[in-house]
């Protein structure tokens, strides 16, 4: 084969097979094996006051920075949270080129003095942002002093980005201590423990230093004052050197403490500060530190890396199991890997599409049999997801705002399916699929927006399974009923407006019975839930009723339900009025569920959220329009009921 042919035929192959992957992954980076990813995923870590899988920690760190749970490198490799986190920890230089800092408003980047991308919302790499980080931190300090309610979008964006940079900075420096070599020169007792010229690693230095310290404490009289001063000076110098790199290793607490009665897990920084404060580290803590320390140097040698990781994994998992803190880790991994919520969301979409198709082919029987089944499957997945969360947390179904969305959605869908089972009008099943789809969409958006662990530790006031199981669950069933009656009221108003099935009186009668029934159902739960909330408040805060915004929201639901029911009983409103009232009730429910959280006042601070006011205003505006359309139907009814001029004349003649 001639050289030109070699160049023409072989070189492109070489480039394709060797060079492109190398460029894609960086000079010293190959994809993480499944085993490595699995070993890291199943590692327990302590974060936010609870023990969780490393996988969960990585997911929410990625979500916070990147705005989603996956990232595609410029080379086209799609990174899930754990491999991404491994790149950040073990290949800081490469990960600094990943454009995984999501910025919603380019004015934030502009304020840093960094070149902006074309799109307002875009992703930037650490490398791109690096020149402006100092400016960013100055601005963040300034804006943090502004009351959160008074902050503008850019100011809040600056603070968010500064937080993300801080987190990333902590992560890329987490293993920085592993590069250090430490020694002590001279002839003090401490120096004699460090004979190596090129020094030792941090874990070895710690082990030797604490051993010498232990000996000295045991026999302090063996040493004269000069020698004692020399060794104290050496300790001070060594600990100073150790402290610098170690103090940056605080992002992940992955060492379970050896003492059974200690709750706080340790970071590498904690192990070092324990030693510096003169307390002996348990041998197992130093052993775990040593194993972790070895990993960065082995990153290019994946078999050796895997073996070292396996021993570290065994040690950590073993200790966590011994402490009784590992039992929920496999379940939580299963929960996230099973993607029950994700599949539920998309199957609800699919079921809604099926419902829409069923409207196009009203005579097709099979589709009407399949549709309830199509709604039942995502409902079942959702219920499995909620149940797993209960077991993971040892809590009732709701203890966070995120869980209210899952629970309310599941309740609304189940109630709809029950109604469908009873009346077979094919309306409730459509509503079930729509409520499921809408609810899961809200849950998804909320999780993306907040980007924090959806199973956090609870504040002291919420640490009561009795009240979470009673008041919180019951009041949220009331919320579900409020939203569902509003949803069905839309069906009624639009059906009447477009004269859908106008000859079918039974259709409208049935629809009205559904709305009325759900209003009654909701009233029971809202009333009992609201009063139970008062009784809880009486036990927690010393008063039954304090006119707190969250309490008021619940009261408004009760009051307005009573208004509708009494107005109907007094015949001040008819079917269309009940529907309009139900839409208002859904609006009030949204106010109680989300709106009051925007006020940022009151004792229910654990439910505060921000930044969804625009969505709420859009929702309420649309609902006002629908109520207006109901008004058109009402006017049409009234005019239709009144005899026309021609009819009057005909009657007169």
């Amino acid at each position, binding site marked *: 084969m001639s050289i030109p042919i070699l160049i023409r035929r072989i070189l492109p192959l070489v480039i394709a097979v060797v060079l492109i992957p190398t460029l894609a992954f960086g000079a010293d980076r190959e994809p993480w094996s499944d085993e490595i990813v699995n070993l890291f995923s199943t590692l327990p870590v*302590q*974060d*936010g*006051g*609870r023990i969780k899988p490393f996988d969960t920690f990585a997911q929410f760190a990625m979500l916070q920075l990147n705005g989603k749970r996956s990232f595609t490198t410029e080379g086209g490799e799609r990174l899930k949270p754990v491999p991404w986190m491994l790149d950040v920890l073990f290949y800081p230089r490469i990960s600094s080129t990943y454009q995984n800092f999501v910025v919603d408003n380019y004015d934030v980047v502009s304020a840093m003095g960094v070149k902006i991308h074309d799109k307002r919302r875009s992703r930037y790499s650490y490398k791109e942002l690096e020149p402006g980080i100092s400016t960013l931190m100055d601005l963040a300090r300034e804006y943090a002093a502004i009351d959160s309610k008074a902050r503008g979008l850019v100011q809040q964006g600056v603070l968010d980005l500064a937080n993300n940079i801080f987190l990333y900075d902590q992560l890329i420096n987490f293993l920085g201590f592993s590069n250090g070599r430490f020694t002590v020169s001279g002839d003090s007792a401490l120096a004699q423990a460090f004979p190596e010229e090129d020094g030792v690693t941090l874990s070895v230095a710690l082990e030797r230093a604490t051993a010498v310290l232990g000996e000295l404490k045991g026999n302090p009289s063996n040493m004269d004052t000069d020698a004692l001063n020399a060794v104290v000076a050496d300790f001070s110098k060594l600990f100073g050197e150790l402290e610098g790199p170690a103090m940056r290793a605080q992002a992940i607490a992955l060492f379970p403490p050896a003492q059974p009665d200690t*709750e*706080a*897990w340790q970071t590498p920084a904690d192990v070092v500060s324990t030693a510096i404060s003169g307390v002996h580290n348990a041998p197992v803590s130093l052993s775990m530190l040593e194993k972790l320390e070895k990993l960065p140097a082995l990153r290019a040698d994946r078999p050796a890396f895997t073996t070292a990781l396996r021993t570290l994994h065994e040690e950590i998992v073993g200790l966590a199991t011994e402490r009784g803190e590992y039992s929920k880790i496999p379940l939580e991994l299963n929960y996230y890997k099973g993607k029950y919520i994700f599949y539920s969301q998309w199957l609800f979409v699919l079921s809604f599409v099926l419902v829409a198709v069923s409207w196009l082919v009203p005579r097709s029987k099979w589709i009407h049999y399949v549709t309830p089944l199509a709604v039942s499957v995502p409902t079942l997945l959702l219920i499995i997801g909620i149940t797993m969360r209960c077991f993971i947390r040892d809590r009732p179904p709701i203890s966070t705002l995120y869980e209210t969305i899952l629970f309310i959605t599941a309740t609304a869908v189940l109630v709809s399916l029950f109604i469908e089972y*009873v*009346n*077979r009008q094919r309306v409730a099943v459509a509503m079930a699929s729509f409520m499921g789809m809408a609810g899961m969409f809200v849950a998804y958006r909320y999780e993306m927006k907040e980007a924090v662990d959806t199973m956090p*530790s*609870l*504040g*002291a*006031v919420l*640490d*009561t399974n009795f009240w979470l199981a009673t008041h919180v669950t019951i009041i949220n069933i009331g919320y579900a009923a409020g939203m569902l009656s509003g949803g069905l009221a839309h069906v009624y108003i639009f059906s009447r407006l477009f004269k859908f099935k106008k000859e079918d009186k*039974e259709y409208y009668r*049935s629809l009205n*019975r559904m709305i009325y*029934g759900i209003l*009654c159902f909701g*009233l*029971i739960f809202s*009333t*009992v839930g609201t*009063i*139970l909330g*008062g*009784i*809880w408040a*009486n*036990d*927690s*805060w*010393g*008063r*039954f*009723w304090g*006119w*707190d*915004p969250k309490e*008021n*929201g619940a*009261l*408004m639901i009760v*009051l*307005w339900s*009573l*208004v509708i029911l*009494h*107005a109907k*009983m*007094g015949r*001040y409103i008819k079917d269309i009025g009940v529907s309009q009232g139900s839409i208002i009730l859904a609006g009030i429910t949204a*106010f109680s569920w989300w709106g009051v959280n925007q*006020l940022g*006042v*009151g004792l229910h601070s654990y439910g505060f959220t921000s930044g969804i006011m625009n969505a709420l205003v859009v929702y309420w505006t649309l609902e006002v329009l629908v109520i207006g359309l109901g008004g058109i139907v009402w006017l049409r009814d009234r005019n239709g009921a009144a005899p026309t001029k021609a009819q009057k004349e005909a009657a007169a003649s």
Partner: protein
Amino acid sequence: MKKIITFFASYGFAVIILTLLTILTLFGTLEQANSSLFDVQNKYFNSLFLVHHIGPIGIPLPGVYLLSTLLFINLTCGAIIRVPKEWKKPGMLIAHGGILYMLLAGFVTYHYSTSGQMTLYPDQRSNQYASYYEWEIAISELADGLYGKTWVIPGESFTDMRPEDTREFHQSGLPFDLMLEGYIPNCMPQPASGDEGVEGFKLTARGPEMEAAQNAAGAYAMVISKADKKAIDSGILWGFSQAPWVVAVQGTDYAIELRHRTWELPFTITLNEFIRDLHARTSMASNFESVVTMSTPGGAARDVNIRMNEPLRDSGYTLFQSGWGPQNAGPDTKLFSTFAVVNNPADQWPLYSCIVIAVGLLIHFLQKLFSYLRAENRRRAS
């Protein structure tokens, strides 16, 4: 008479009241973003009438107190008219009875309950609790630095004063009268220049705080001899001052202080220990707990743990774990514990009414559900 009862029992009347209650609850909730809860409660929820402002437009409205009274009348009249007719709907009657009971609980709580707080450091004891918002002036004889007999001027006799008003207070048994010159609901003492203020200090008025409990009332005061009506001394009374104003009259020292209204408990609480647990590696509290000893005048004593959701209930009083401090405490700082103290004759009435309402609604709507199911079965059968 029958017409009046029929009007007050009507659905229309109920709808109007409930609609207004919904609107007022909404207004009172939104207002909390700008005003203190205390002010909002007084304006919207404890009032007979109010004017709500939407921009420059003022809308006169009935207050929640008035509406609750009307709702009570509506329910009572409704019961008189409907009980004989609607005995087949026992659920509704029971539920409405429960709501009446709850409104009654609200009325009793509003008029007959007292609530305040007690703050203790470890090893401190107290049998008193102080109101969050109400003020009073206490005048106590001092003997060897200890408080003796105390005279109290209740807040309602001076908190209506404006800064330019003066008012004299006479107490039998005291050799002097107290004259207040102006009362400021929230103020701060500051150094004064020239003839301003008293003894180099003046009270500077401030706007109401978002947390009404942080309002510090103040007034200029003058002690006047009862015998010859001559001024003996002038001073400043300020709600948050660390020490009382001490005046010597006829050889006796008197401590005069403006303080939050204070009540006595029939037992004494000693704080043995305050425990604050955090979730590991966070600043989020997982538990607040006070270990106290409760001792009665008879000498009986028992140890009790008061924690979130687990108050101490005894002799009609309830003590709740409500706070701690100082907030910027270091690891070795001694923490104090604050208890909310409530004396409410209707303490558990909401719980009983909740059970009654729940049973009533359940009976009623189960009746409705079964009739709905029967109707649907008939429809499907036909």
